[in-house]
């Protein structure tokens, strides 16, 4: 049907312009998104809930406001979806679990959904994820795996797997996810899309289901940098409902994207970040570094120890969060998650305290690096998306567990809350991401660099190759 096909493949920013100018209606755009979901989600399994009636009602509201001459915002009529750990009014926030399905329906949307919709966006559903976000694969024993849009036999990446699959597969132009140790950057890498993990505390986490309070971040996924920035700008701002949310003023970035990268000093992360890499990851970093003229290497000190400390904090805070459920309903967990959390409950508290103290030391050392560079480049994942169910891979002749190694290059970065844009390098047959890392609160720099890479053709979200 031509009417519903017209917005297929359009960027969020183009949709918003077309809807605001009444060249397209929000209702048409919404129906087109719902049609794409009906057509492709049987294969991708990105969605766990499709909020069709809510979306249609919101679209009618947007169209009516535009007809009345109102400015509905920079995301007018743009369909988006959220990882199912965001509260969506009327749905139980399952967070990838079986247990949470017994929760009463959420009484109010998460803050970030409210802000997206206040900018004119239209929520079309909730997305598959790894159980309780303790995952790098996008697999889920309760809901089945979300699948990679470039090869459905491969992982989408986790834990925001459905977010990666839905945006990578072109079902929606924007999605939201969470990142505790890499759960935005890993699916971005595997699914070949852009993802922003903002500075810790930048975006409100209010009314989202937590995992590790001192490491949890929320952020957007998109198929281009402008869309990523539009969503990010729409969601900024303090929020008393999240104790860690910043009180800094809103710092919009969309208008700054065109400033380019002149004058910015870009370095490549050395040492730890150049180890345990498949050739595709090395190639992706080399392409990005080459395009930016980056030749200097900086060594992020004690990165392996930072990853270890992030692991300790994650497993213990996660265990604390779920302790009562581990006692009462251990058989209702994904067994792999349960056994990790039970072990986490048994880690001595002294190690956790030392990990948090090390974190303070490490932060200071890494911030020193940002006195002489503006951006650090690092691989987002050591490999392209593995096959679903794949347990090991062989690297440099050594067989290594997949799950434990997917996030080794993301964990030392989120550990101290640095802002990162994961940019997709469209290698064949599978894309892979590179982390563009900036100093705290300098999302603008990371996004400008990502935008420049996109303009140079080095970073791009390939069309879905597997559907």
């Amino acid at each position, binding site marked *: 049907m031509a009417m519903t096909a017209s917005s297929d493949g359009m960027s969020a920013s183009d949709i918003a312009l077309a809807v605001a100018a009444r060249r397209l209606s929000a209702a048409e755009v919404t129906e087109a998104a719902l049609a794409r979901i009906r057509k492709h989600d049987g294969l991708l399994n990105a969605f766990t809930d499709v909020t069709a009636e809510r979306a249609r009602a919101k679209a009618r509201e947007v169209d009516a406001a535009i007809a009345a001459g109102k400015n509905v915002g920079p995301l007018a009529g743009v369909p988006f979806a959220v990882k199912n750990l965001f509260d969506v009014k009327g749905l139980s926030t399952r967070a990838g679990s079986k247990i949470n399905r017994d929760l009463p329906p959420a009484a109010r949307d998460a803050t970030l959904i409210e802000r997206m919709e206040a900018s004119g966006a239209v929520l079309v559903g909730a997305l598959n994820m790894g159980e309780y976000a303790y995952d790098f694969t996008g697999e889920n024993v309760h809901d089945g795996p979300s699948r990679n849009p470039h090869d459905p036999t491969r992982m989408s990446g986790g834990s925001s797997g459905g977010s990666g699959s839905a945006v990578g597969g072109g079902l929606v132009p924007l999605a939201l996810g969470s990142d505790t140790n890499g759960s935005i950057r890993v699916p971005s890498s595997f699914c070949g899309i852009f993802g922003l993990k903002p500075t810790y505390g930048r975006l409100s986490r209010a009314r989202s289901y937590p995992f590790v309070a*001192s490491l949890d971040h929320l952020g957007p996924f998109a198929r281009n940098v402008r869309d990523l920035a539009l969503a990010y700008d729409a969601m900024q701002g303090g929020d008393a409902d999240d104790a860690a949310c910043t009180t800094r003023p809103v710092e919009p970035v969309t208008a700054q994207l065109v400033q380019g990268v002149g004058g910015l000093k870009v370095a490549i992360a050395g040492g730890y970040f150049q180890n345990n890499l498949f050739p595709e990851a090395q190639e992706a970093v080399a392409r990005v570094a080459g395009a930016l003229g980056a030749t200097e290497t900086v060594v992020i000190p004690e990165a392996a120890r930072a990853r*270890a400390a992030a692991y300790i904090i994650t497993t213990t805070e996660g265990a604390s969060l779920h302790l009562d459920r581990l006692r009462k309903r251990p058989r209702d967990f994904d067994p792999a998650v349960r056994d990790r959390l039970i072990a986490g409950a048994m880690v*001595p508290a002294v190690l956790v305290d030392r990990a948090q*103290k*090390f974190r303070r030391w490490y932060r200071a050392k890494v911030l020193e690096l940002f006195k002489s560079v503006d951006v650090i480049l690092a691989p987002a994942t050591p490999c392209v998306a593995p096959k679903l169910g794949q347990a090991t891979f062989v690297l440099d002749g050594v067989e290594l567990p997949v799950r434990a190694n997917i996030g080794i290059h993301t964990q030392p970065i989120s550990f101290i809350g640095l802002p990162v844009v994961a940019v997709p390098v469209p290698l064949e047959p599978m894309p892979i991401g590179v982390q563009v890392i900036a100093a705290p609160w300098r999302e603008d720099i990371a996004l400008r660099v990502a935008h420049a890479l996109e303009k140079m053709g080095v970073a791009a979200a390939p069309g879905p190759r597997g559907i």
Partner: protein
Amino acid sequence: MAADPLDDYIDSAAKALGLTVEEAWRQSVRANLEVSLRLGRLVDEFTLPDETEPASVYSA
């Protein structure tokens, strides 16, 4: 009787915390705990000044 000193620890910690570790889960729990303790040693062996503040989030 537990086969490994870590099994004794798992049994004691599970009892103290009120957690159940079924026999079918034990090997996986132990493997995860071994990873956590190995990574924990990396943190443990790194000497920091006594005055170092932890980085957990709180502001009064």
